[in-house]
């Protein structure tokens, strides 16, 4: 009984966050949830645990974990920050040993997780929240986009005070070419060799923007440095070692700029790519019902609100606290181009395509 009441409270919280405010009477389920959903929650509670393999670090993942625990107090969250490669490794190893340990896989490696789906290591589940997501964020009711995070420029305001800041990709290219000597060693970007996210950004750029390798070439000519994480770049930009970094995770950049007046960010107005953290339920998950409840929570209004509170903008248009898909679209002047969750993600993982990309990348980076 307590279980149900808390579930209803959670639903109420979701509803409140939505701002739609339906009346909460008795044991109503949110709109669109099947009548037998309460039974799923009951079962999830008796499973008692939800095990998550993720690349979202403990700091960023905390609000969603706390919100989930508040909504479903009986379910312990085993939160494993394993990184993108680490999550993938562990999932395929455990599947081979027939000891699946993950209920939910939730990482920013859209391509690797699509490989998991392709390998048959993900379980299809049609979430009642599906209707609230953009069509491109749902792959066969199996792999779901949970955030929309723009790719941005992060810069140190004081160091760039004398420069005209680039507002488009074309201006960024001109900025690097025109100030080649002044910017020597002062630029940074994501390293596609070290980071799956960096690879996702640049391979997506290469596919959709013809000027990508021109940009890399101009960057190489300034003897820019590459890093394996956005946080590492932030550190160097805060300290003034670098002045500007492009192709960083923009949702972080927006948060950092809000906290630290020395930092600024730019969403290029002619083209701003965006990626999603994607989630799926593991095939043979040890706690299948808890997995469903968590997945629903993650893409539900309450979970999306919690994510938005740590700067992971909501993929829904109806979550209003923090950033969401609509607001980001406006910030990018209507040119936000999210990477869709489709099997096209597999192209970049083909060894031949990867080798080809890196050959061009290295050649361009020489400047």
């Amino acid at each position, binding site marked *: 009984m307590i279980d149900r009441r808390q579930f209803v409270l959670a639903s109420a919280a979701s509803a409140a966050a939505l701002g739609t405010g339906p009346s909460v009477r008795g044991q109503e389920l949110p709109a669109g949830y099947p009548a037998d959903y309460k039974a799923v929650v009951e079962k999830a509670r008796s499973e008692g645990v939800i095990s998550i393999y993720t690349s979202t670090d403990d700091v960023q993942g905390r609000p969603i974990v706390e919100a989930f625990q508040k909504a479903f107090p009986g379910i312990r969250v085993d939160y*494993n920050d394993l990184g993108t490669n680490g999550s993938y490794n562990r999932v395929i190893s455990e599947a081979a040993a027939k000891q699946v340990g993950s209920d939910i896989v939730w990482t920013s490696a859209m391509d*690797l997780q699509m490989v998991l789906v392709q390998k048959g290591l993900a379980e299809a589940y049609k979430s009642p929240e599906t209707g609230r997501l953009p069509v491109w964020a749902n792959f066969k009711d199996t792999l779901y986009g949970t955030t929309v995070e723009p790719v941005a420029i992060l810069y140190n305001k004081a160091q760039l005070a004398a420069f005209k800041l680039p507002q488009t990709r074309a201006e960024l290219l001109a900025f690097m070419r025109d100030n080649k000597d002044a910017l020597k060693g002062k630029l940074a970007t994501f390293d596609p060799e070290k980071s799956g996210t960096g690879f996702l950004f640049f391979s997506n750029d290469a596919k959709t923007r013809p000027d990508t390798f021109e940009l890399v070439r101009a960057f190489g000519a300034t003897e820019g440095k590459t890093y394996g994480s956005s946080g590492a770049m932030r550190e160097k930009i805060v300290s*003034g070692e670098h002045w500007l970094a492009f192709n960083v995770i923009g949702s972080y950049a927006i948060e950092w700029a809000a906290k630290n007046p020395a930092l600024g960010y730019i969403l290029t107005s002619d083209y701003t790519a965006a990626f999603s953290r994607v989630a799926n339920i593991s095939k043979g998950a040890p706690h299948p019902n808890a997995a469903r409840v968590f997945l629903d929570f993650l893409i539900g209004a309450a979970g999306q609100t919690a994510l938005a509170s740590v700067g992971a903008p909501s993929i829904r248009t109806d979550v209003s606290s923090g950033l969401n898909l609509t607001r980001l679209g406006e910030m990018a002047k209507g040119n936000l181009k999210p990477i869709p969750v489709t099997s096209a993600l597999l192209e970049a*993982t083909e*060894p031949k395509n990867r080798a080809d990309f890196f050959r061009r990348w290295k050649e361009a980076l020489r400047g």
Partner: protein
Amino acid sequence: MSLAAQAPRFRATVILALFTMVAAPAGLIIYQSFLSAPFFDEAARPSLEAYEFILTDPEFYRALWTTILYAVGLVLIAVPLGGLLAFLITRTDLKGRGWIEPLVLVPMFLSSIVLAFGYTVAVGPSGFVTIAFRSVFGAAPWSIYTLPGIILIGGLSHVPTVYLYVASAMRRLPSDLEEAARTAGASIWRVSLDVTLPMVLPALVFSAALNLLLGFETFGIPLVLGDPNGILVLTTYIYKVNSIFGAPTYQVMAAVTVFLILITLPLVFIQRRLLRHARRFAAVGGKGARTNLLKLGRAGQAIALSIIGLWLLVSVVLPVGGVVLRAFVENWGEGVRLSEQWTLANFRAVFAIESLSRGIVNTILLAAVGGALAVGFYLLVGLAGHRNHGRTGTLLDYSILIPRALPGLIVGLAFFWLFLFVPFLVPLRTTLFSLLIAYVIVGLSYGLRIIQATLLQVAPELEESARTAGATTFRTWRDVVIPLVRPGLAGAWAMIMIVFLREYATGVYLMGAGTEVIGSLMVSLLTSGAMDQIAALSFISILLTAVGLTLALRLGAKIHD
């Protein structure tokens, strides 16, 4: 059956058990290197593809060459400096050596990730010190992101390892030979070079070989400092190869690891040959050794203290100061006034996040309790190998050094597989025991060498006289050897505790929710770049080791004895 008859069986059992623990992960890695896909994949077939890939990859050769330069450079810096510090602190009347000694060991307490991170914050291009220096002198003429910079930092950080081995040997030397040389008019440097040095040669050789191996296995410093300039060593090459293919390429990682083993096995062989005549160097006999300290004189004191002071400044004050500062600020760098930035926010975040605070508790448990269990295990192995000149002795030597050739990251990965695929190990996978077992293997050469060196110092005539008087091997060990080495065991525990506290690579693939440890948490946080929490965890890690060390010293566990 008499106890005497059981000793060979005891030796064989222990050594075979150890060999299994070492050979299983190493064998798995070698096997994996000859496959075309992960060994558990149905598509895996025998193949040399992985070797073909690395042998035709120019990056591999570049990384190999950098690794050799790094390892040799590290030895050239660490061994003379460690030896010199050991001599000054153990053999002379240097002022303040009581409090200098724990400071000398500080870099050893820290995982190289913490150290490298500290250097970045202190003397990186926008470090606290760099900015201050630049504002006074106009320019700061150093760069820590170059190969020489990385070698220097690596070398300095390995000085304590050399120090511990050499100081331990020096303390056991009777001082009569040095005194005789002094009386005959030799200068203090002459004495150190011609008298002390030859007597501690085995310890120097040990530490040189060990540091060469450590150099080949190094990961944290090149990862943090080499990456921005694309400087790769073999271990970071392994790391990079993994992401170049997009998906884990275990076979290539394994093939590079096999190369590491091939490079280091000859080193083991040389080391073994050099130490075959260890008997010649046994300096603790049945008679008590009296130690008189050499007098440095006023000028000598000044020079010695300056050398140590400079070393302490560069190796301890800079990186630790960097970490401490960074832990209490969120923003730093050019144009940021630090006095306005003080905050406890980084720590609040760490304690509010369950996995991070649990990581702290787990690390303490693993280091203190796990460390003690490890020493017990090492003692068993040490006794099994003690004065064992048979074939099992050779097997033991290689069993000890093989894991040294394997990067911690790979050991962790191999154990992850073993715990996953070996049925009777499965229940342990999600407990701290999985980490402990991997740690025991990773810390093996450190711990065992300390114990073996201590055991070797017990002159054979003591044991021989016990045996002649009719004692069994077990009895000899119990009544003669163990009581004599007991202080050494406490020291070994303190050392193992430190090794376990600073370990970061091994847990990366092994840990999960509930078994987090600080070091590996820092590696995962480094991936996402959460520097605020890394700084706070680094600070806590330093604090823990300081507490541990103080405790160990209070309990009478002299690190050096």
